[in-house]
Structure formats: C-alpha cells, structure tokens
C-alpha cells in the first residue's frame, strides 16, 4: 500500500481583481504552493455572472486551490476569511491524502 499523509485542501472562489491580495496572504501564511483555475460563470446570492465577453477583470471570478498542512490550515483560513469578509467569494476546506508529505 502506498503510504499517504493527511493534508487540508483549501478551495477558494474569489473575484479576479482581488487575486493578488489573496496570494499575498497565502504566501504570508507560509503555504508551500497554490494553483489557480479559471472559472467560466456562476451564481450566488448576488445573482449570476459570466466571464464570457468580459474585457476586464471586474465581474470575473477565479478558483484557487491550496494543499496545506493541517497545522497551518487554521491560520490560512483566518487570513483568507478576513479577505473574503470584504471581497466576493467563498472558501471550503476538505481532507485529502498526499503521497510526498515533504512537498507541502
């Protein structure tokens, strides 16, 4: 059996203009990495939006995935939360297993 280690997967959906603010916070929290995935469209409490045809960043969202050590997760979440209190977006956390624990 492959030896795996428990980590936290933090998934954030955030408005694009605030992306740098988020990655700054992630870096400050000492996460070892993150990955940014494009988002096409969505709906939330504020109605629906779509990236189609947009020439600017406002009104567009992106998704950020970061695999973090369980010990760091709380700190990361708090920093992300204070940002999300003011910007449009959501954050979820889930358990994942990784193979190389040292990578994260």
């Amino acid at each position, binding site marked *: 059996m492959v030896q795996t280690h428990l980590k936290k997967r933090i998934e954030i959906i955030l408005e694009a203009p605030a992306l740098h603010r988020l990655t700054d916070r992630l870096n400050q929290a000492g996460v070892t990495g993150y990955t940014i995935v494009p988002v096409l469209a969505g709906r939330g409490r*504020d109605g629906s939006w779509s990236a189609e045809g947009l020439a600017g960043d406002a009104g567009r969202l992106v998704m950020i995935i970061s695999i973090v050590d369980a010990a760091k997760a709380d700190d990361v979440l708090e920093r992300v939360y204070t940002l999300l209190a003011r910007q449009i977006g959501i954050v979820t956390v889930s358990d994942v297993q990784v193979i190389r624990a040292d990578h994260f």
Partner: protein
Amino acid sequence: MSFLELASQNLVSPMVLFFALGLAAALARSDLSIPEAVAKTIALYLMMSIGFKGGVEVAKSGITTLMLLVMLAGVLLSFIIPVIGFFALRAVSRLSAVDAAAIAAHYGSISIVTFVAATEAVRGLGLPFEGFLVAVAAVMETPAILSALLLARRAQPAGQTQGEGESAGALIREVGLNSSVVMLVGSFFIGWATGAKGLAMIAPFIVDPFRGVLCLFLLDMGLVAGRGMREGARHLSPPVLAFGILMPLFSAAVAALLILPLGLSVGGAAVFITLAASASYIAVPAAMRLALPEAKPAIYLTLSLGVTFPFNLALGIPLYLAIAQRVGL
C-alpha cells in the same frame, strides 16, 4: 449638420447596429457570446491602434501649448466630475456614501470605446481632430479614482473603506499600471518614436481592419451590457437610472465650457466632450473592487455599461458633435 441628422446617420452605422444586435441577443437570451480571451485581446488591439495612431499624430505636430492645456483640462475634469457626481447621487438617491463614490469614479474616468466611436463619427463627417487627444484620454483614466477614494474616506472611518495594509499609494500604482493604461500609453510612445514610417509598416494591421474589429467588440459590449441589464436592472432605482443619462450631459456641458477658450478644432472638441461624458467600464470597476470592495458592482457596472454607454453611443455622440460645432474652431 443638425443634431437630428447627425443622430440618424449615427444610428445606422454598422458599429451602433452591431452593438444593438448584441444587446438584443442578450435580452432574448441567445447563447451568442465572444470568448473572454478574444474580448480581452480585442480591447488590447483597440488600445494599441489608437495609442499608436495618436503617437504618430503627435510626432507630426510636436508638443504644443494647446496639447498641454487640454491635458490639464482633462485631468481637472477627471478630478472634479466625481465630486459633483457624488453629491448629486447622495442628494437624489438613497445610495450609501461608498456606492455613490464608486459610481462617481466611473464618470470622472473615461471609456476608450466611446472615445473611439466619437473619433469614427468625427472622421465620418470628414472632420480632423487633434492626435494628442489619445494622450488626454490616458491621463483622464485615473485621477477620478483618487477623487472617489477621498470622497469615500471623508464619509467613513479610514479603516473601513480601504483594504488593511494596502496604502493608497500602492493602489494608485496598481491602477496606473493596469493593462489598458500601459497598452495605450506604450503604443502612444512607440507611435511617437517610429512616426509615419512605423505606421506604414503596421497600418494593414492597426488601421485598415480597425472599424471591423470595432464592430465585433461592440457586438460583445452589447452582449455584456444586455446581460448586465437583465441581471442588474433590479439594482437600479429610478434616480440612479436618471443619473446614468443626466450626468454625461452635465459633464459634457462642463467640458464644453472648459475648452471654449482653448481653441480646439470642431472634431477635437467633440472628442474631448465625449471623453468627459463617457464612463469607464474596465479600469475603474476593477480598481473599485480593490479600493472600495463594499460598493456593489451590480450597480456601477450596470449603470456604466448598461445605461451610459448605450446612451452615449446612440444619442450622446451626435449631441456632443452638435455642441462641438458651437465651441470648436
């Protein structure tokens, strides 16, 4: 030409009609759409083209006092219009100070596509206009953002209206380096440096297909504006809606008075007035998401793109042309 003649001629141009097509398609819930990657690239193409052509014009004419004065007038307007807009909005609507400031910022800044549409209308009448107006457009993009920030702060304790740890300086730097400003100003300087020779090299790309590309972009803007109307209409109260039409008219009037003594050409005056009357929908919304995240984007985006832009495109520009025939030389 009278306003009516100008307006009816404007309304049957391919540009306005493609915008209308996009609007109609979005309102009818067609799945017509331009991919985001292409919309972004066309926007950059438009900046590249108008920046470059403006630079080439300035290479011909050199830097003149008129140019510096008009730039000064532009910066002034970009600072002042948000202040007027803010108090007007606060007086007539129930918008919060932050929302009012964010909206007002859009009206102090400019819309480059409205600018382009005005230059096309002016060219369509065979009128020349000053090439340096591209530079004026560029300097008018950002002062309005500063203005709005100050207004919002005055109304609220500083800690609340601004991202913790983000200084206003960092913000202004970020806004000043946004892609539209960099592309416009960069192409302007390249056009200036390479002059007519440079233009000859790339004219088949940046000049000849320009209007056609503009049609495609206006189709896209119609689609986005229509989607915005559908989604955002319920966020706009009647006074706010009225603001989206009356504020451009007011700004146009102020701009006309301001340049009356400067001696711009009729074409140039029309373009300058249009700049003042236009509202940003790319640079300022993004800046507002950073500077005033509490302001609701559904309001300012819908108002700028769904109300003011179509109004300017269809009726505003011919009107500003008619005004310019009185104030220009």
